[in-house]
């Protein structure tokens, strides 16, 4: 038996420690992992827990991230709770196996500490890796601070492992800004946390020797489509309800309320920023400031990035006049992903606000209060004019001549 850890009512944890503690408390059976900045401390913390008797699962220190996810897939198919952590290039190296994990319906939990993708090489936070994962068939939850990284990691097991879902789950947090910033975090006790996550209930376990299973079959044009369509349909129809149910159970336990799409001062907002990650808290703070100067500002943030919450986004934006979609990843030849998803969500809406796109914060470039203020002012002008007064796509905080498109 693993030793229990005595925790304070309030701990001072960075995002990495918050995620590490959640993995420990979930009593993961197999972690196969490979360290990479900025998620390295998760692997180190876990090693330290193991060395001090707080873990009784297997911890396999593999030789690459591809091997990490390969080991996770083998372990999950064998029939037990599995998790790992990564960032950026490691995430990209895993990409092949991410699709294998979701296609085999294996509920692995992956903590992704978001970081830019090279070239040029960069260790700081942006959402390039998160966006890379968006077609991989995983559920993607997004934490904006350390407390949320802890909470969502615990909830991820309960969501993904549910037999109606059986899909792997990523929990994202921003590299360095969340992962390396110590904050107050209120943990559950080990017993409470494990009781909340629950015992792993195996399904089609390879180790059930009485019932051999074949994983990872070949399907060509005869069956491949049905498998993919079924997975997609389950993402579109079974995940939202389960996520809501788990969020509610978590609120009941902790008082901390989560929503599939978080809304901030949206009741009477005329303009809104949509963003992911730590930028959400900056935008919320600036929204309060804007209200002091007469701009009715609000913030909308998808807690669930995949499956994409079309209905909830449509509802959250049902009254606004202008929306800015903030993408922290280079779209490399298109409008940003958030812009595309949000405008698609709004196309069927009775309310058709002016929607513009801002690319910001690549490779860890600061996103400041002034940046957010400027965006809200531009939104205010768009709302008043009823049309875009700026180019559709702009870059925030970029050195050199102003770059914009459309």
């Amino acid at each position: 038996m693993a030793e229990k850890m005595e925790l304070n009512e309030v701990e001072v944890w960075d995002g990495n420690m918050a995620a590490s503690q959640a993995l420990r408390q979930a009593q993961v059976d197999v972690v196969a992992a490979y360290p990479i900045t900025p998620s390295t401390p998760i692997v180190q913390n876990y090693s330290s827990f193991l060395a001090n008797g707080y873990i009784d699962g297997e911890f396999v220190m593999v030789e690459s991230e591809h091997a990490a996810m390969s080991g996770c897939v083998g372990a999950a198919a064998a029939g037990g709770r599995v998790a790992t952590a990564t960032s950026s290039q490691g995430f990209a190296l895993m990409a092949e196996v991410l699709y294998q994990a979701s296609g085999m319906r294996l509920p692995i939990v992956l903590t992704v500490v978001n970081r830019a993708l090279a070239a040029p090489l960069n260790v700081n936070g942006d959402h390039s890796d998160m966006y890379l994962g968006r077609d991989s068939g995983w559920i993607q939850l997004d934490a904006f601070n350390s407390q949320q990284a802890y909470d969502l990691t615990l909830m991820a097991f309960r969501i993904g492992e549910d037999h109606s879902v059986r899909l792997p789950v990523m929990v994202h947090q921003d590299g360095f800004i969340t992962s390396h910033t110590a904050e107050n975090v209120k943990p559950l006790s080990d017993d409470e946390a494990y009781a909340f996550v629950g015992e792993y209930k195996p399904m089609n376990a390879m180790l059930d020797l009485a019932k051999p299973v074949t994983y990872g079959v070949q399907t060509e044009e005869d069956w491949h489509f049905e498998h993919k369509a079924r997975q997609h349909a389950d993402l579109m129809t079974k995940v939202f309800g389960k996520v809501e149910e788990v969020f509610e159970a978590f609120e009941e336990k902790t008082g901390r309320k989560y929503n599939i799409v978080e809304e901030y001062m949206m009741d009477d907002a005329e303009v809104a920023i949509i963003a992911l990650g730590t930028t959400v808290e900056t935008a919320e703070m600036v929204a309060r400031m804007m209200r002091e100067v007469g701009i009715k500002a609000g913030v909308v943030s998808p807690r669930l990035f995949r499956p994409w919450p079309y209905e909830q986004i449509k509802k959250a934006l049902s009254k606004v006049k202008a929306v800015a979609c903030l993408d922290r990843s280079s779209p490399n030849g298109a409008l940003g992903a958030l812009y595309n998803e949000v405008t698609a969500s709004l196309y069927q809406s009775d309310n058709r606000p002016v929607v513009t796109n801002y690319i910001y914060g690549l490779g860890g470039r600061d996103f400041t209060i002034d940046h957010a203020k400027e965006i809200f002012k531009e939104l205010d002008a768009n709302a008043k004019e009823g049309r875009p007064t700026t180019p559709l796509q702009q870059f925030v905080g970029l050195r050199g001549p102003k770059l914009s498109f459309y």
Partner: protein
Amino acid sequence: MSEMKKIKNLKEFSTSADRFEGANLLCPGCAHSIIVREILNATNDPLVLSASTGCLEVCTAVYPYTSWDASWIHIGFENSSTAIAGAEAMYKTLKRKGKLPASCEGKSPKFIAFGGDGATYDIGFQWISGCFERGHDMMYVCLDNEVYANTGGQRSSATPIGSSTTTSPAGRVSYGEKMNKKDMVQIMAAHGSPYVAQVAPNKWKDMIKKIQKGFATEGPVYINAMSACTTEWKFAPDDTIAISDLATDSLVFPLYEIENGTKLTITYRPKNKIPVRDYLGAQGRFKHLFKPEYEYLIDEWQKRVDDYWEYLQRREEAGV
């Protein structure tokens, strides 16, 4: 406790229960199915299996069918080793926590990964190396047919010099593959693996003995199994065993084992050693070597085989 099967003759062998079904899509005369069947039949213990993308995989698990009456997983081309290592890690955890499925309690499942030479010598090399360094209790079996057979016969780093493949074709100015075959057995022994062996399906008693020894060994075991490929080596499908005999009796495929990284033992010494020329001449992939301008390659090959046999014997004598 492990439970090894006692197999004294071919009849007992042929009447053994199959966990790898004859209903599969492998070519008639493919040695893969002979090898896999011999390996799975060597034990009565439960099996947990993995396979890399390749002939064995695409021919045995085409939805909605499976040829496997044991749990089996395929992820990708490069990672059958790590897939089974992950399953083995899960077994260890669940055993320790007392959470194994009831059907698994008190049993000693054997964890075996299969891969072709492309998956082993080339694309999956790093994953295998990682698994062996970490010491998982597993067996890795390379079905070595010296070519990417599943995708139409491209060269791999197991393809021997002079072989004509679709990416190293013999042509007006080329004798085919230019590189010598990578010595995977020695590389795996150098990992400090407790048991490494080269086997061939025609020498089935030798093979079963080694497989059973491998199953009885704790830690990562590497088996390099020669798998004569009727399609890419270009010989008649009913000549698989005859070609395999030529390979082992010419010592192109010497049969030996290495324990704990150093102790080398030769397990088969042909009574009548045949010339390498006879082995090469029986296969279409080497046909062009018999032109006068390439005859020197056959002589060089013979010398290489003789030198390697000498090396193996000296290492055996030295006990290191």
